[in-house]
């Protein structure tokens, strides 16, 4: 009985938001986002580490469960989601009529994020993370503000690259082990001959997702101009889940990988330095959370790097990582909420309008390529083929060719010619027949 309850609870935690995401199903329900969070809240208070395995899904070995680390994550997520849901309701009245789509996307993001937290193996984690990523990007693009729009497009490109890199990493992991549960993977990678490739891919993938320097440029504009609910979610959804992924996917505490570890430390340090030097000093008030987030991310990554180099250190202090993330998340949420309250009180703050050059460049370059290609028509093979076919067609049409055949037939029909041929054939036959 207990098992069925646990199973039901675990499945409905990501499952309910998914169901509610279909517009037709939630029409009669007023507070759909809040309702969708119910199973997750209940799960928070279930003791122990319940986990289930799901048969028939993908290629087997898929499961959902909750353990110590993910409980912190889940707690932070639930709290921030509830806050976001409340903010959403209060702002829903004076936003444009995107409401149904907005709610659908929010629910999809929620489903993906909570599912990613609950995933116990790499495949389901990847699945939920992809769902969450694309849904969140759609949220960013849906926003009316141009800057957020651009940031969303940039993040989409990063997301696509990240997903591809992570897929490759997933394949490498699967090549070394049948079961894709995190613990098993960590052991397998530790035993494999070259964990470096896997580690570098995982690092690159999660760097792209979590907004580490130098690919963090999409974070500040989004914090600045998105609606508060989305800004609130920025830490929880892309960044924190990315960090969770890094945490899970890398075999921390099991092996010592100095080079990737050092790389991570370097990135982390660079992020913090950049954020402090360029961000916090010149920043407007509204963008402050962005740079705080970046700093926090950098710090976390530094910790990860250290853990990679010194597994013993990780084993000792690693359990603080989720706590850290949760605290940062709550802190950011309070910051943003206070800004919203301040705004309501009338202290508005303007956000500067200069868009990052990188963003513009990334946005313009692919479009330009495509337009240039179309205009210049560099389709070599079709052009060659078309030219060749045209020449063949000309050949077919050319009068010389037809005239040759006409003349041939004409000649053959002249009696003199025909008779000559006839007699010739007779003679040739006889000659050929002679031994």
């Amino acid at each position: 009985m207990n098992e069925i309850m646990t199973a039901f609870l675990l499945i409905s935690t990501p499952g309910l938001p998914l169901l509610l995401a279909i517009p037709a199903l939630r029409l009669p329900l007023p507070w759909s986002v809040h309702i969708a969070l119910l199973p997750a809240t209940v799960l928070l208070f279930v003791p122990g580490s319940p986990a289930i395995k799901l048969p028939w899904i993908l290629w087997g070995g898929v499961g959902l469960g909750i353990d110590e680390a993910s409980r912190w994550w889940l707690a932070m997520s639930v709290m921030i989601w509830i806050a976001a849901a409340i903010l959403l309701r209060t702002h829903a009245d004076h936003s444009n009529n995107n409401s149904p789509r907005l709610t659908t996307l929010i629910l999809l993001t929620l489903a993906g994020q909570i599912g990613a937290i609950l995933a116990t193996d790499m495949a389901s984690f990847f699945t939920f993370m992809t769902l969450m990523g694309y849904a969140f990007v759609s949220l960013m693009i849906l926003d009316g503000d141009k800057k957020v729009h651009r940031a969303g497009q940039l993040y989409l490109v990063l997301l696509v690259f990240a997903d591809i890199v992570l897929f490759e990493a997933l394949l490498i992991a699967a090549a070394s082990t049948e079961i894709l549960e995190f613990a098993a993977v960590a052991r397998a990678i530790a035993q494999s001959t070259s964990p470096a490739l896997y580690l570098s891919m995982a690092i690159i993938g999660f760097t792209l997702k979590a907004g580490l320097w130098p690919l963090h440029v999409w974070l500040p504009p989004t914090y600045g101009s998105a609606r508060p609910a989305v800004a609130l979610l920025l830490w929880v959804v892309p960044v924190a889940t990315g960090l969770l992924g890094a945490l899970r996917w890398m075999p921390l505490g099991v092996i010592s990988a100095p080079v990737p570890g050092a790389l991570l430390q370097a990135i982390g340090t660079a992020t913090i330095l950049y954020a402090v030097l360029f961000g916090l000093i010149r920043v407007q008030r509204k963008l402050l959370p962005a740079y705080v987030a970046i700093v926090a991310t950098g710090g976390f990554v530094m910790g990860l790097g250290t853990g990679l180099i010194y597994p013993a250190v990780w084993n000792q202090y690693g359990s603080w990582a989720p706590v850290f993330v949760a605290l940062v998340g709550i802190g950011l949420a309070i910051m943003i909420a206070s800004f919203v309250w301040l705004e309501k009180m009338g202290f508005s703050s303007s956000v500067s309008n200069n868009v990052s050059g990188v963003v513009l460049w990334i946005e313009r370059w692919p479009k330009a390529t495509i337009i240039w290609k179309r205009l210049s028509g560099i389709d070599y093979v079709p052009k060659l083929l078309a030219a060749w076919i045209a020449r063949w067609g000309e050949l077919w049409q050319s009068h010389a060719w037809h005239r040759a055949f006409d003349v041939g037939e004409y000649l053959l029909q002249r009696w003199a010619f025909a008779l000559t041929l006839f007699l010739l054939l007779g003679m040739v036959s006889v000659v050929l027949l002679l031994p």
Partner: protein
Amino acid sequence: MTGAFMSIPWVVILIMLPLAGAMACFLYPAKSKSLGLVVALAIFASVSGLGFQLVELGAQRYTVGGWGAPLGIDLYVDGLSLLMLAVTALVGLGVSTYASSYFDHPKAIHFWPLWLFLWSALNALFLSADIFNLYVTLELMGLGAVALVALAGGANALAGAMRYLLVSLLGSLAYLLGVALLYHSFGSVDIVMLSQHIEPSPAALAAVGLMSTGLLLKTALFPLHFWLPPAHASAPAPVSALLSALVVKASFYILLRLWLEIFPLAGASFGQLLGLLGAGAVLWGGIQALRQTRLKLLIAYSTVSQLGYLFLAFPLGTSIAWKGAIYMLLSHAMAKAAMFIAAGNILRSDGHDRIADLDRLAQRLPLTVTAFALAGVSIMGLPPSGGFIAKWMLLEASIRSGQWWWGVVLIVGGLLAAAYIFKVIGHAFTQSEQPHEAGLLPTRMEWAALALALVAILLGLFTTVPFALLEIGLPFDKGRAG
């Protein structure tokens, strides 16, 4: 019952019945249509009877009037003759059905006697067992065919008929010369006797050369094919069908018989020459067909091209090659008859046969276009059709014997055929600039075409019976490796 059934001299009936029918049609012109149809059905039944007899008793000889070889007339039936008779009967039945609706009264009076006379000559040709008889029937057939070509009236038809007549006589003359030489050298005209006594003396070889040349002229092998397109294109549709399907095949049949029975003494290079000319016919005919703008001329050149395939069996010489060539002959007969009948339908309905102006014919005359398409499938050698089976066998023979270049000719010929067939079909689905009205044709005319085309397709699926029949009498193993 079976005993009596078996002892009926079907061979005699097959020759006498159409003759009697011809005379009856001549004497009672008012009833010629129904008489013609009845005779066609009766001949079909007789062929079936002969078939049963053959399967039971094997190959048979029948002496006419008790006067056997070497001076009398013997009639000989084996699997090959039976198949030729069967094809003639099927095509004849189809064309008769078609002609009964096609020709209106004045023409019909002339058509039926001539056609039944031609049929009689064809049957006799396929049943002959000596080379002089073959000459006689060949001449009679030629005369009948010429007269039928001229039936259309008009300058074109008469010119074509005249040319055909002269060509026919020339060919027969050469053939007769050869017969004379052989008779002089070996004292017999009977094929079996000749095959036993013949030796490669100069006279015999000269005879072989002459006879072959004459027959090649009559079979319209490239480059002696010049008379065929005008004759076949300007004749009325049923006549074109008969000519392309049956008449040109008759002279090929004679060549085949002689080659198998009497000519094993011929050197390999003659076979190569025939193959070379056949390849030329395939390519020349195919390209010419592609260039045509009128449908009937396209089909006539297609005949030229397909006849070339038949000659590819000569350089290959194996049993598979012969079987393939004969199968090609059978399916081509059915398919070509269907095509010409379809063309006749189009001509009757639209008043012209320009290919570019076919204008959505697929909607207006769907059965006709289907018939054309199915016949075209056999001509192209695409499955499932008799043409495919034949192409397969010829390809197999050419690869097995190492003379792969004939295989290349086969493939290229198939591509050319696909080009001109689909040219027509493509236009039949497309709208042209001048819209045409929906035609009204008697259903009999459309169904005749479709039935013939279906037989060509079915020949590709039910192959056991023809192949089993070919084994009776086994003409392929004498002298040449199987």
